[in-house]
């Protein structure tokens, strides 16, 4: 039928059909406000919760101080702990009470200045100070230990200098931390969060749209119209893509202005790579929607396959390089992994082309595979 028409008019009617599909989807979006809520309210709420809720910087850690034999030296050390922004010390008269407090989780650590603290023990490579840390949260415990060592080293240096001694070790470490000299965990967590949030939004927007049409029987109705599969899919992707990009812009604006994360790369690179990632996220949602026969199933699959993998396997918080090799391979299947790498680089380091291009290519491949699968599965079910 098509071949009989003039090619130009075919193209025009194809444009019309696509336009019609987009209009239909847009009306559907506008009439059930939940999609708009997903695209704009969800990033706002989630980024607020994540941005404030996720932090690895320990401050005001409650600790117990036990001084067995008060002297001028012990009080100068305890005041160093009192003045540190990292600690919130409470004095305990005896180690047994302090241990009780540690067991009841009133404090996270104990600093115990024993009765032989002072003079002799401070210089001879001995350890007159006992420290106990609650190690249940291993990462936090390690950070707290680091802070304690810092307070101790600084105090010891001042103390030795006052006594005219040197405690300098033969090799000193001169550290340069690039991109994030203050080691603010928020600066790397917030860009990563954008990837996690956009994974959720992309999947939530589209996970149910095709399943819903099948369930209600409107897909069959669409199939008997001259609209082609490609036009149906494009009609579904384009409105949600625009919604998703809106959500993305909102997230970036919040990261830069609210959370003060430096944006060293350009906005254009960020938007370009975001568009690629959004294609992957929407493609994944559409694929779930196409493969699942009904909304119930699509919803369940979306819950399982989006948030937790993006949270744990994307490298946003857990270092991928430290995972076992087999697990590292699995992380390659997670689109968010590539976007996290891009975002952390574009925000904190700027335009590092090897990182940006390699990860963009991976995103492109994933997006094409998802959309091709969606198209194939939709055609098969026509027959």
């Amino acid at each position, binding site marked *: 039928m098509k071949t009989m028409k003039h090619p130009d008019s075919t193209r025009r009617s194809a444009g019309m059909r696509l336009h019609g599909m987009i209009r239909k989807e847009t009306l559907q979006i506008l009439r059930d406000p939940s999609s708009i809520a997903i695209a704009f309210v969800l990033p706002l709420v989630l980024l607020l919760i994540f941005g404030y809720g996720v932090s690895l910087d320990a401050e005001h850690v409650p600790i117990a101080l036990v001084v067995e034999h008060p002297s001028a030296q012990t009080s100068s050390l305890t005041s160093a702990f009192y003045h540190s922004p990292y600690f919130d010390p409470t004095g305990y008269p005896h180690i047994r009470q302090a241990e009780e407090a540690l067991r009841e989780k009133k404090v996270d650590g104990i600093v115990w200045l024993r009765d032989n603290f002072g003079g002799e023990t401070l210089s001879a*490579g001995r350890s007159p100070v006992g420290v106990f840390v609650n190690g249940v949260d291993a990462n936090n415990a390690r950070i707290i230990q680091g802070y304690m060592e810092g307070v101790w080293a600084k105090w010891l240096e001042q103390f030795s200098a006052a006594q005219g001694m040197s405690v300098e070790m*033969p090799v000193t470490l001169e550290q340069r*931390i690039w991109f994030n000299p203050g080691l603010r965990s928020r600066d790397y967590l917030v860009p990563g969060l954008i990837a996690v949030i956009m994974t959720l939004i992309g999947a939530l927007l589209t996970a149910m749209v095709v399943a819903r049409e099948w369930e209600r029987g409107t897909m069959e109705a669409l199939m008997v119209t001259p609209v082609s599969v490609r036009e149906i899919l494009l009609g579904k992707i384009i409105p949600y893509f625009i919604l998703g990009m809106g959500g993305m812009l909102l997230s970036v604006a919040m990261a830069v202005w609210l959370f003060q994360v430096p944006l060293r790369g350009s906005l254009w690179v960020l938007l370009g790579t975001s568009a690629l990632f959004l294609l992957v996220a929407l493609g994944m949602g559409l694929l779930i929607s196409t493969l699942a026969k009904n909304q119930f199933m699509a919803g369940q699959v979306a*819950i399982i396959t989006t*948030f937790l993998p993006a949270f744990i396997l994307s490298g946003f*918080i857990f270092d991928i390089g430290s995972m076992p090799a087999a697990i590292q391979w699995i*992380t390659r299947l997670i689109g968010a992994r590539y976007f996290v*790498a891009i975002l*952390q680089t574009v925000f*904190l380091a700027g335009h590092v082309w090897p990182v940006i291009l390699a990860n963009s290519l991976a995103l492109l491949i994933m997006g094409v595979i998802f959309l091709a699968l969606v198209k194939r599965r939709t055609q098969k079910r026509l027959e």
Partner: protein
Amino acid sequence: MLNRIFALMIKEFLALLKDKRSRTVIIVPPLLQLIVFGYAATYDLNRVPYAIYNEDPGAASRELAARMEGSPTFHLVADLQNDSQIAPMINARKALMILHMGPHFTRDLLLDQSSKLQVIVDGRNSNTAMLALGYVRNIVSRFSEQWASEHGGVRPPARLNIRTWFNPNLESRWFIVPGIVGLLTLVVTLLVTALSVAREREAGTFDQLLVTPLHPVEILLGKVMPGFIIGSIEASFIILVAVFWFHVPLLGSLTALYTGLFLFLLSAIGVGLMISSIAVTQQQGLLGAFLFLVPSIILSGFATPIANMPPFMQDLTLLNPMRYFLVIIRSVFLEGGSVSLLWPQYWPMAVIGMVNLSIAAWLFRHRLY
């Protein structure tokens, strides 16, 4: 009455498990995720890529470099020959860290007893950077001490004598894996409950249920039981895997653990059913499930400590049942927690569960749509 609830329960189980794909979705992914996440979610560093830029021909720098190479935490990826190679290595994430020893490293050490080791770290992931620096500092200070004792010189200063309780080797897996028990139990419970009422509403079968002699409380019980049974079977299995596969020590009493699990399931099912009864469509149900699931994982202390959050966020976590369950499960696993010690964690979950279930039961008949 029991008969009727039982019949409804059977119907709910059939609705969930009759379809093979739906059965697979509830059973297989949580178990796969347990294994994958158990290995993936760790803060411990392993084979951190680093490069050395050693301009010094002397013996001391070579010995220090050998110590780094001997550490299982680090993995040497390149030997740099000049300054200009440093930036590309770090920028492209080929190395997390560059150790730079200047041309007079050994000479300074021999003459002045003092030398500098420059470390350049990629701070894009600040937690990894901080941990890696900590490891390097350890290696360097051990090297320094040995150098000082061999060559005579400054005696090493006094040190803190640090012991860690409950997790002596600071294995972050011991912290994370019990957390995954809570995480996956929550996901499974929500999968089973969050769409169940919304689906019946959309299909119109819920109206049919309402005109039967079943009391709303009976409908509620029929909807609660499948979540309860599936949730506790999967949680038990996950606990077994945590103990026998990941070898996380389980020191406390099972009574304390299962009291916590019972109350946690109650509160999670309560929230799930409430979401489901508010939702008119399944899409809204799904949105509600995510709106609950995501914040409750973020604000539970699963990956980052609650104590690091701003005060108003910390108050918000008090509404989150998972927060209490994570304290319970970690305490029972690692600290040997008992029922009496964990009492403050039990009752908030019971309250959250009861309140949500009552709202859900009320909404069954009063929801306008």
